[in-house]
């Protein structure tokens, strides 16, 4: 009725394709970016630091290294709240982790990720309303 079932099975397929498409060259490029940016990040501060952490996080995410991606993207939001690609990716990763925790019945982890998703809503509210 609302168009369910049609698109759902397609999306996971798309994600798998993206992972497969990661060529050796692209992987090396991402790893180079990460190591280069990591050296840069400690010398930066505030908004610039947030941007670099975001880039590192997005690169880790493309590599499929979710925990490292989450760590960097969290640091980015701690340095400066923003609602760019980093924010969207982090929310998506939290939701994925939340679903995994639910599947293995890990209540503690489930609550942690639900709480983190709540905090993301707060970040969105604050950035939109201009809270610094």
């Amino acid at each position, binding site marked *: 009725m609302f168009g369910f079932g049609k698109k759902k099975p397609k999306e996971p397929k798309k994600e798998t394709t993206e992972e497969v498409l990661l060529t050796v060259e692209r992987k090396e490029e991402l790893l180079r970016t990460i190591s280069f940016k990591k050296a840069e990040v400690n010398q930066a501060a505030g908004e610039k630091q947030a941007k670099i952490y975001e880039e590192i996080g997005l690169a880790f995410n493309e590599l499929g290294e979710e925990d490292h991606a989450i760590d960097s993207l969290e640091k980015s939001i701690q340095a400066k709240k923003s609602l760019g690609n980093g924010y969207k990716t982090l929310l*998506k990763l939290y939701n994925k982790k939340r679903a995994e925790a639910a599947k293995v019945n890990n*209540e503690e982890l489930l609550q942690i990720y639900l709480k983190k998703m709540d905090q993301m809503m707060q970040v969105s509210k604050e950035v939109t309303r201009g809270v610094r």
Partner: protein
Amino acid sequence: MSVVNFIIENILTQASVTIALIAMLGLILQKKSTGQVISGSLKTMLGFMVLSAGSSIIVGSLVYFGHIFTEGFHMQGIIPSIEAINGQAMNELGLGRDIALTFLAIFVFNIIIARFTKWKYIFLTGQAILWMATMTTVFGYFAGLRGVALILVGGFIGGVFAVAMPAIAQPFVRKITGMDDIALGHFCTVGYVFEAGVAKLVGGKGEKKKSVEDLKLPAQFEFLQDTYLSLMVVMTPLYIITAAFAGEKFASTLSGDTNYLMFAFLQSIQFVVGVYVLLAGVRLLLGEIVPAFRGIAMRLVPNAIPALDCPVLFPFSPNAVIVGFITTTIGSIIAMFVLPVFGLAMILPGMLTAFFAGGTAGIFGNLTGGIRGAIIGGVVHGFFITLLPALLVTTFNSMGFVNATATDVDTVTAALLYAWLIGPLLKAF
């Protein structure tokens, strides 16, 4: 027997105690430690009492406002505040226990529907479920339902809304976010879909359809940074202007030794204080119950799609939020003046609803009708979300509510379902 009677007549009639006992049962079922059970139950009871205190403050201020508004403008001026409705229903109307039980029943029905149907949405915005429970209980009570029937019908209707609203929004949300694993859980969805429809009709089409996101707009609302400050920005001029219209002679009869305009100013702050206290109570009240529900729901419904609060969409279309907020505000101001012409009460504009509901609706309007759709659709949306609560005013008045009406349009839709369908059906049989 006398002990049982004592328990029934003196303990279970106290809503705060019943609510604490419900929380206690939930915590015991989750096998929490004794310490956690005791502290959780006490916090829940404290939450209810704080909520009651907030409600009393709001009612005091609203009674005053009602008097000066009627004197000043010779009509009823209604403040849209779901918090004020919830507070009055839980305390002054004595529906606190029924609302708490309906709140739980909505959770349970949400889980059952998501578990056994293909709609896997779990509504995570606890506060919105409390508002829904308030409205189904109030209007169910008004329709003549009592006891278990009141709670089960309210729980079922609320549960259906908790799944249906994210489901209805999902085709739009999927396009906005580009993903299907997160949904929108905000009880203003009827308004969002309405704006999307209007925007589709009147908005740009094909190549002419330009997105608001292509424009350069100021990105932030500094005056809205704090919920309570932004409430004050609206309430204070509203009270002072109304007092001025009511005139010194009349307003002074209510203000005692204080200057009548100063008194109006202080009363407007009192309203904000009331909302502050009430929401602090709500947070305490839900602090124990909601995480427990979420944990249970997520484990019982494999592949659940979490329905999150409206800010989930803001990052995907920030300009549309601004356009939506401004146009919805304009629409509600137009409705404020137009509705009394048709014999309805004057609904005063609510800044926070215009921001959150209007902002999100703007995203929907922009999606289906581009800039043109978002602007025209937004104004019509503002009118629509003011009109629906206006339809409830007569019922609220006859039940003894003071100068307030509900805000979130899905809860209003549920209330109208009772008023227009369930109530007449009950009376017919």
